[in-house]
Structures are given as structure tokens and as C-alpha cells.
């Protein structure tokens, strides 16, 4: 059975970006770069619907 692993790979990338953004946001906060903290936090939040959309599209692909 041949499977599509695209969804899995894409979601792995999303999660990786999540980790990076969280780390960067926390660091930026301590460096008092509040604007970048907000950017990273926003990006992190936007990644969630993106992940959900990827899941929806790839769920039923065999």
C-alpha cells in the first residue's frame, strides 16, 4: 500500500516552526524587544489554523 506522507511532513515542519517561534518569543521578551515578541506570538497562533487546514486536506488522502 502506497501512502501519502505529505501531511505528516508538513505538520512536522509546522511544529518545528512552532518550537522556534516560542523560543524566539521568550528570548526576545527578556531582551525587551516587545515588538518581535508580538510578531512571534502572532505567527505561532496563525500556525495552529494552518496545521488544522493541513490536517483537513491530508486526512483522507490514502
Amino acid at each position, binding site marked *: 500500500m502506497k501512502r501519502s506522507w505529505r501531511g*505528516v511532513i508538513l505538520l512536522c515542519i*509546522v511544529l518545528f516552526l*512552532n518550537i522556534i517561534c516560542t523560543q524566539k518569543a521568550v528570548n526576545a*521578551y*527578556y531582551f525587551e524587544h516587545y515588538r518581535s515578541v508580538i510578531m*512571534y506570538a502572532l505567527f*505561532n497562533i496563525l500556525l495552529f489554523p494552518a496545521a488544522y487546514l493541513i*490536517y483537513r486536506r491530508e486526512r483522507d488522502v490514502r
Partner: protein
Amino acid sequence: MDKDQDQEVQCAECVKQKHIQNLQQKQQRKNDQIPFEENNYTHNIRKGDERLLDRRAFMKTMVGAAGVFAVSTLPWGALAVKGLAGGGHQDDPPLRITDIADLPVGEAAKFAYPGKHDSALLIRLSENEYKAYQNACTHLKCPVFWSKEKDELVCPCHHGAFDARTGKPTAGPPQRPLPEVLLRQEGGAVYATGVKHYET
């Protein structure tokens, strides 16, 4: 009349018999049968658990994790907004740390600045050289102490070390320098006058 009655009784008897026979046959047929409709003998393989970690479940987990990350950055974002709204840094009132006479060269004194929970260290590096840092480790906030022998600030938690002259991390996990406390000498005492903010 008598004969008729007899026949009827007999008939009732045979109906009963037939019924019993029928029942027995039914029972037998039931017992002979395989108890399941299917005949490929896979009913004892539980597929439920197998699906717990298939591709779709894995993707679901990933989406859930993305959600957790999204939520976990929210408080940082909120704090940042608060920091932005608070505008610049308001000046902290000066605080008298210690008398110079009470602090021999190479020793350190503990104090708290600007809040009473922001513990800090004042180090007398030489006759006339003082440095003070907030001593919560920039890794995971363990209290850093001054080691005279090693001539640096040492964090006991994960063996982090900071240069006492600049506050920069020299070893271990910390990445940010310790926040420096600005000092002023006046009338034989050392005062803290503010916290230096990162320039980068």
C-alpha cells in the same frame, strides 16, 4: 365419542412431541454453527488499538501540539503588549546598598533592587571597582553567587558562569548577560540607581 376423545388426547401428545423435537433440532443447529457470521477467523484481532498510532492519529497529535504552542505564547504576547504600553522605563528610586567599610575587596553583598524580590549582588572587584547584577540566572532563574576563587559569578543549577566585569555568560547554558545594576558612590556608601537595559 370415546374414541374421538382418545384421538384428541393422542394428537395433543404428538403435537407436544413434535414441538420438543423441533426445539431439539433448533438447538442442535445452533450448536453446530460457527458463532460468527464471518468465516475468516479475524474477529479476535483488535483493530482499535492499532488505529491509535496510525498516520491520521499522528497528524491529529501534531495539530494538538501546534495548538498548545499557540496558546503557550499568548501570555508572552500579553506581557509584551503590557511592556509596550508601559512605555519607556520609569526610573527606579535609588537604594542604599551598603557602606564601603563593610565590604572588603573581593567580597559580595546581597541586596534586592528594584523590587524587593529582584535579588541582586554587589561585588567589590578591587579597591575602587564595584559591579552589581541582578543575580537570577538568565537560564532558568537560579540564584547566581559570587565565587571569589573562580573570580566569576557561578550558577549552581547547571554550572553556568558569568564574567563579573561585564555580566556576560562565559560557560554553561545561559545566553543572555545578567542585567547590570547601575551604581553610585556617595558619602562612604554604595547606592543602586537603576537597572541597565539590554542594548542589543
